[in-house]
């Protein structure tokens, strides 16, 4: 049989695309190389009784319109907001972040009275940028070189968005998009630890340091989501991040779609310039009227399509696409909750994100190691214990700890990672936690260590880049992934892209998958199955 669409990769975007197409009546099949579904929104039990969030570990960007359209609640998805966080300072102090505005202001005032009041102005300015960018997430970028009516209309729409801003705000926006987060925060704050905390969102998943130009935009990318209307807030998926892809799979199956696990795509079949299906690694051939790749743009076109089928200029640009890995991850099963003596008894921060990097300078030194081809010797870690809120991932009293670690390069001094490198990376991270939480290491039952090597081999992310390509200004909007191909299409007819390499980029957002489905349905002249993005009032 011939499917209407074969989707390569059962990550969140591939599944989102599949769900929308299946709801339009298309016969769809998702193929996945691993024995499990999820891509980078995955939860596996690697220690008996403990569910992990093996890759992505928090949710905010996942569009509520998609959850509603695809009835993910009915299929078991619950997003749980979490409570603030803390940065531990060298020397025993800490900076806490609280959900309560007044508690937060008083906490900031312990470090700087000026910064405590500046925070409201900073938050207002960031929210203004969020209001500007949010309406763009669920639209196909226009092709600025095209004169087709739809592209012209979308360009006009973009121009109107810019035109609605004051001259001062337009200038601010352009400055913000191109600045380093370090320079940007210096305009508001004086406290090193407050700046250290706020800079975090600008480096996560990015091969930039906090002093690199362009890092400020990355911060916005992490702030533009929400949990039930709290813009910039983050939460956990109940049952681990795999709950998102489990719910998507259930929704897909309810709409008649299929998922085949256990064998990945060897190559995408192309005949007379059109994609006609896929050939799996196990030799199976699956015919499809169209093939939609959830793999990143490099993996799709440099590994699974024969180069002769592609225009040279396209191949050159895909090769130049920046997708440098910058992070790793430790997933830890704990026998008991860790104790952080710096925190007051009963403080809620333990239920939020915990950091040890108490200044931008320290963060930048971690990046210096990356540039030299080594993982950070004093890494930045985003430590979360979702089981402080989610009771379903471990037995009562036991905990799962997720440690996102930066920086970790795709190669160690130009050569491949070895197991010894991986162990050294692990010990560096565990020792850092131990130094703030004595006795921590004694509570460790199991550690899953993921360097860019494991992320590429297992999840399929080229160079271990979690966003399927860096979120720098040159690789956004109509330039994502490469100029001329930002509308989810490729140079090969009926071969489409739906992953985070496409607009609006990475994070567990689902918007690339939704937008790709919208384009496929438009071309197939089928009624859209997705609702419009919520209006920003």
């Amino acid at each position, binding site marked *: 049989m011939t499917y209407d669409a074969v989707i390569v990769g059962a990550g969140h975007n591939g599944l989102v695309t599949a769900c929308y197409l299946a709801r339009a009546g298309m016969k769809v099949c998702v193929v996945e190389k691993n024995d499990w579904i999820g891509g980078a929104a995955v939860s596996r039990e690697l220690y008996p009784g403990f569910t992990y969030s093996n890759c992505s570990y928090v949710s905010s960007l996942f569009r*509520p319109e998609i*959850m*509603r359209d695809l009835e*993910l*609640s009915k299929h078991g998805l*619950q*997003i*749980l*907001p979490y*409570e603030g966080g803390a940065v531990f300072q060298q020397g025993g102090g800490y900076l806490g972040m609280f*959900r*309560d505005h007044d508690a937060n202001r008083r906490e900031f005032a312990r470090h700087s009275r000026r910064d405590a009041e500046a925070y409201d102005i900073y938050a207002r300015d960031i929210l203004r940028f969020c209001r500007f960018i949010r309406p763009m997430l669920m639209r196909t970028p226009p092709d600025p070189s095209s004169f087709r009516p739809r592209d012209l209309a979308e360009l006009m729409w973009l121009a109107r968005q810019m035109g609605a801003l004051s001259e001062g705000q337009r200038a601010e926006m352009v400055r913000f998009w191109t600045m380093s987060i370090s320079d940007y925060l210096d305009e508001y704050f004086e406290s090193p630890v407050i700046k250290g905390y706020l800079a975090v969102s600008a480096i996560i998943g990015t091969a930039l340091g906090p002093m690199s130009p362009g890092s400020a935009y990355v911060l916005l990318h992490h702030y533009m989501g929400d*949990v*039930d*209307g*709290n813009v910039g807030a983050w939460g956990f998926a*109940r049952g681990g991040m795999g709950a998102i892809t489990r719910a998507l799979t259930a929704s897909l199956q309810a709409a008649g779609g299929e998922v085949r696990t256990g064998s990945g795509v060897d190559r995408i079949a192309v005949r007379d310039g059109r994609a006609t299906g896929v050939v799996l690694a196990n030799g199976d051939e699956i015919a499809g009227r169209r093939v939609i790749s959830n793999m990143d743009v490099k993996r799709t076109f440099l590994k699974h399509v024969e180069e002769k089928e592609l225009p040279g200029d396209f191949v050159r640009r895909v090769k130049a696409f920046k997708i440098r890995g910058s992070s790793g991850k430790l997933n830890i099963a704990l026998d008991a909750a860790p104790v952080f003596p710096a925190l007051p008894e009963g403080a809620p921060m333990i239920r939020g994100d915990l950091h040890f990097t108490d200044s931008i300078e320290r963060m930048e030194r971690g990046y210096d190691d990356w540039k030299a081809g080594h993982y950070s010797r004093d890494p930045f870690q985003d430590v979360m214990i979702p089981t*402080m*809120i*989610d*009771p*379903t991932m471990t037995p*009562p*009293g036991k905990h799962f700890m997720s440690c996102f670690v930066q920086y970790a390069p795709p190669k160690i001094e130009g050569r491949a990672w070895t197991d010894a490198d991986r162990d050294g990376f692990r010990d560096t991270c565990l020792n850092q936690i131990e130094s703030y939480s004595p006795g921590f290491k004694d509570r460790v039952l199991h550690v899953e260590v993921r360097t860019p090597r494991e992320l590429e081999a297992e999840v399929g992310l080229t160079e271990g880049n979690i966003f399927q390509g860096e979120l720098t200004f040159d690789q956004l909007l109509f330039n994502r992934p490469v100029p001329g191909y930002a509308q989810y299409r490729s140079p090969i007819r009926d071969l489409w892209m739906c992953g985070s390499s496409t607009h609006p980029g990475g994070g567990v957002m689902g918007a690339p998958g939704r937008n790709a489905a919208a384009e496929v349905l438009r071309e197939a002249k089928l009624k859209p199955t997705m*609702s419009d993005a*919520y*209006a920003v*009032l």
Partner: protein
Amino acid sequence: MTNLTHFRTPLRHTPFHPRTASANRLNRWGPWAGCMTSLCYGDVDMEYTAIRNAASVYDLCPMVKYRVTGPDAADYLNRLMIRNAAKLPVGGVHYTAWCDDDGKLLDDGTLFRHGPEDYLICCQERHLPWLLDSAQGFDVQVAEITEEIAALSLQGPCSASVLAAAGLDVSALKPFRMARFPFAGGEITISRTGFTGDLGYELWMTPDQALPFWDHLFAAGAPWGIRPIGTDALDLARIEAGFIITNMDFVPAHQALREDRPRSPLEMGLGWMIDWEKGNFTGRRALLAEKAQGSEWALVGLDVPGNVSAEGSILYHDKKHEAGFVTAAAWSPALKASVAIAQVKARHAGGDNLWVEIYALRELQYVKLMLPVRVVERPFYNPARRRAMPPERV
């Protein structure tokens, strides 16, 4: 000189007040049935999340309670209420409602049958004169015992696990059943009931058991993140569950100033409870006539596009003609949808060409929205764990 000081403390403190007061970080209180009630302990989002994710505790003491005893208790309640109280088995609980002679609602509530001749009515409003007057000719005693019972509602997917950790094995308790359990040399009653549409239990005790039980429950529930919740979080959960509240979704006939305000059980979506076969009951004749002629109003659940709550909004047919009004609405965190409960003129109950006009307040100015709504089933949120047997253990 007497030592009465009601005028200094108009709102009664419930038996749990020492604990609820110390947990209420923001001192955010509201009056409920003459009691001081926590609206929010500190973070409404986290309190709501405890209901759907872990275990939440709500102080139920202000609920008005009447005990009905005597040989004619079942007959009396069958005359008084629309549902069949005789069919309720001992150890059972059911949701019910009662009307005046015009078939208009006086209240809804839960009826607990503790013995063949021993019932407890638990409701929102006060009805003693009506209950006593209705008892004429029946061999029953009706007593107002609100302050003799202390009660907590423990709701959430971990509630059975928490009770087990507290030494209370409720695994055999089916929805709408209750049983007695030993506690500290005495006994408490646990019913598998609640107002959240989730797995949950209500815990009934004497006021002197209140504080020791609270401490015991919170110690046992700590590994599951047990949390006291205020009325704001509960109201969100009850809207998701599609439940109505007297004086919020309808005006009880005994309080209505305007004669067009009272509603019948048929108009409020409670027709399924009426036992037409059980013999005469108050309001039966009027309800039969309404059934024959058709109701004027209907209660509907609405799915509202977008992410703005439709609280307090007016509904229109074809964007022009008033068709009804929203009585409760919220952005549902569980569903990731904007939902509403509304009264509409019965001819619009199908929802065809029905619109809601929302005034969304944004930085001191209203943004006006006119959105097409869709009539959907209630409950909006209905997880399988709500009724699962044995109850989910986490």
